[in-house]
């Protein structure tokens, strides 16, 4: 090898290290063998071998979300890349910074239908923030650094870098990160101050305000959560978080109303509906949050802070649009608030809080406790109590258990909660837990799961066992795809088409077959003991928590309905709820 020249594979490794990557999640194959060979020859960069490429991306997402760093993935061409597509789409929808390296057939074979060839950049174009095909080894280092810059800047997202095998073998020049500057991509992080000033005036003069904050606050970094908490407390206003935003504001605080949206709390949704000033920070008016758009918070002036201009006025027209990074905007808001010595209208605020407390008094998360049948909510309440003193990270799969987790597990700080929000990817939780555990080896990482979701990526138990990762998989096993069953019950005349989990494995034996530990609870009296064992065992554990098969997740705003048409559960004695199916308008039925 000539001097100062590296092979493409070596350039990849060097660039990863220079970008601060210490772990990469991947799966080898023919088109990435040179990179795997270069990995073999060094010890700084750790490779975690997953069992399916989708899981590699989810694991990197878990790593990224729990650390705030960029997650790195390495997969082969063709099926390796296509398997990664679900993970990439998930990361795009939830704005998670990922750099995914894919092998490609040698450049002279591209377009030839070669073995394990797929048009990776074509396939991943709509499911990445940006992607690259590197055809010249001398562009490789620059592209790697640019890819990391794009993934983490502005609204974060996944980036694919497709590297043909001949480029991995070829020799080229390495350039360090400092010398690489993107030609044009400069997202706006500092807001237009005049708009922030207008926003502060509107906030200060509000009578019925609410902070509605989302994943943008988490993505902005821990400082944004601190500033948010500071600002919300300065104002004395109520605050609700989206599913993605949980942890940005401490759940134990009286000003916190819980999550909002389809399965959000009664008080959060009614406060959103009835507010006169809505302060949206880093949320995107997602359809799970807004419900029926034409009836969404009809009487409010809306402030929207977002780093992505295309999120503004996409679904909901706002009065004060502020493009910028949440931490920057919050800092400016606090500074201007202090400088102008703002003090909210205390009389109005007192009335507003009285109204909110009345809503909160409905105790919307109440459920009918049973014995010996375990209610899923009860299992999570016990998990909450028994993990209180632990350094805990929670991941979830997708479905009822996910919504119950969001309702019943409180988060006091950001980066503790990893869930698939936008895409709603079943099978996300276990690999995400693995990625989280890799980043936080001594912490307690629990994947709150359903039996159906778990089986979508259960092969990753082998990864957990291989790397001795003590992840805990808490399966709330109701033998149904619970959310599908719930919708079928409420909207399709209880015709449970294909939603029963037939032929389930014995999860205890399954855990043992993988070399982990299996535990089971079938009655209330066993719950604490099983959860305590789960927490204490320093090995991968699957808990088969056999819960009530027919429990539904409430509150619920059915599709096509407004926030104030929220349905409460059977434990609520007020008796004014209607069944979702009876009153769901036709246009609501087509919504998902």
């Amino acid at each position, binding site marked *: 090898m000539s001097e100062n020249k590296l092979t493409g594979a070596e350039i990849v490794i060097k660039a990863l290290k220079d970008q601060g990557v210490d772990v990469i999640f991947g799966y080898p194959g023919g088109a990435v063998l040179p990179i795997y060979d270069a990995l073999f020859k060094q010890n700084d960069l750790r490779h975690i071998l997953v069992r399916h490429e989708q899981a590699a991306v989810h694991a990197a997402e878990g790593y990224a979300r729990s650390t705030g760093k960029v997650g790195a993935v390495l997969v082969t061409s063709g099926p390796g890349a296509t398997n990664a597509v679900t993970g990439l789409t998930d990361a795009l929808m939830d704005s998670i910074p990922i750099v995914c390296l894919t092998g490609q057939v040698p450049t002279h074979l591209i377009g030839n239908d070669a073995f394990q060839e797929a048009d990776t*950049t*074509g396939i991943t*174009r*709509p499911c990445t*923030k*940006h*992607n690259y*095909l590197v055809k010249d080894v001398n562009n490789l280092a620059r592209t790697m650094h640019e890819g990391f810059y*794009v993934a983490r800047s502005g609204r974060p997202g996944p980036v694919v870098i497709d590297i043909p095998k001949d480029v991995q073998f070829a020799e080229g020049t390495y350039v360090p990160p400092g010398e690489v500057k*993107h*030609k*044009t*991509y400069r997202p706006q992080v500092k807001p237009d101050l005049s708009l922030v000033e207008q926003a502060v005036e509107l906030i200060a003069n509000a009578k019925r305000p609410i902070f509605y904050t989302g994943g943008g606050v988490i993505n902005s970094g821990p400082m944004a959560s601190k500033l948010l908490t500071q600002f919300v407390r300065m104002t004395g206003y109520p605050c609700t978080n989206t599913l993605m935003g949980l942890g940005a504001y401490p759940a134990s605080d009286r000003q916190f109303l819980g999550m909002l949206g389809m399965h959000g709390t009664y008080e959060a949704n009614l406060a959103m509906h009835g507010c006169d000033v809505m302060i949206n920070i880093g949320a995107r008016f997602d359809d799970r949050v807004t419900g029926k*758009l*034409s009836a969404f918070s009809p009487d409010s002036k809306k402030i929207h802070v977002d780093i*992505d*201009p*295309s999120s*503004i*006025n*996409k679904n909901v*027209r706002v009065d004060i649009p502020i493009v910028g990074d949440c931490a920057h905007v919050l800092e400016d808001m606090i500074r201007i608030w202090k400088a102008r010595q703002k003090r909210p209208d205390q009389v109005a605020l007192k009335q507003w809080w009285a109204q909110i407390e009345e809503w909160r008094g409905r105790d919307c998360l109440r459920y009918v406790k049973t014995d010996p049948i375990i209610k899923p909510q009860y299992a999570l309440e016990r998990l909450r109590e028994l993990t209180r003193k632990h350094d805990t990270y929670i991941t979830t799969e997708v479905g009822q258990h996910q919504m119950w987790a969001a309702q019943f597990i409180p988060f006091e700080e950001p980066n503790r909660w990893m869930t698939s929000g936008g895409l709603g990817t079943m099978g996300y939780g276990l690999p995400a837990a693995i990625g989280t555990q890799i980043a936080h080896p001594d912490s307690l990482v629990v994947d709150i799961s359903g039996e159906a979701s778990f089986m979508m990526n259960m092969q990753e138990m082998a990864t957990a066992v291989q790397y001795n990762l003590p992840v805990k998989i808490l399966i709330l096993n109701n033998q149904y795809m619970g959310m599908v069953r719930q919708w079928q019950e409420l909207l399709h005349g209880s015709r449970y088409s294909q939603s029963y989990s037939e032929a389930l494995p014995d999860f205890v034996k399954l855990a043992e077959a993988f070399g982990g530990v299996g535990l089971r609870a079938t009655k209330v009296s066993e719950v604490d003991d099983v959860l305590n064992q789960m927490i204490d065992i320093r090995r991968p554990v699957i808990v088969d928590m056999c819960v009530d098969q027919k429990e539904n997740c409430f509150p619920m705003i059915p599709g096509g309905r407004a926030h104030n048409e929220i349905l409460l559960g059977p434990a609520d004695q007020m008796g004014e709820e209607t069944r979702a199916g009876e009153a769901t308008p036709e246009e609501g039925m087509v919504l998902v």
Partner: protein
Amino acid sequence: METTIEKHTISVLVDNEPGVLARVIGLFSGRGYNIESLTVAEVDAEQKVSRITIVTSGTRMIIEQIKNQLDRLVPVHRVRDLTDEGPHIERELALIKVAGTGDRRIESLRIADIFKARVVDATLSSFVFEMTGSAAELDDFIGLMRQLGLVDVSRTGVAAISKGAASL
């Protein structure tokens, strides 16, 4: 919710790199936006910059979305809404083949003269006309030719530029 459909001409400067047009087109198809016409060519060989002109239609909210979504693409340098930003010129070029003999052939030539379309190919039984103008003028000419033996049309789509001294 406003429902008035507006037609806008949008100019986009992009890096002339592989896949950039696919990104723009994919954005429109993936999000369900309309493309009435789209033209693209490199305008700065040294900087490798191409200019895309898109004519699209939608509600005001959709048009704003389209511009923001375009601006969000990493290789996009600049997005300008010529319709919003004031006076601009729009031109389209078409090649129009008309076949026929006798009176119809003579009539097509007379009309071409009125529309200032140029004959760029002639045989004893056909003409190819080249015409430049607004999309509406081309529509009018092609409509008349349809009755006189139109056999083929090739149109470039709209190219547009703002009036006055300012650059994009």
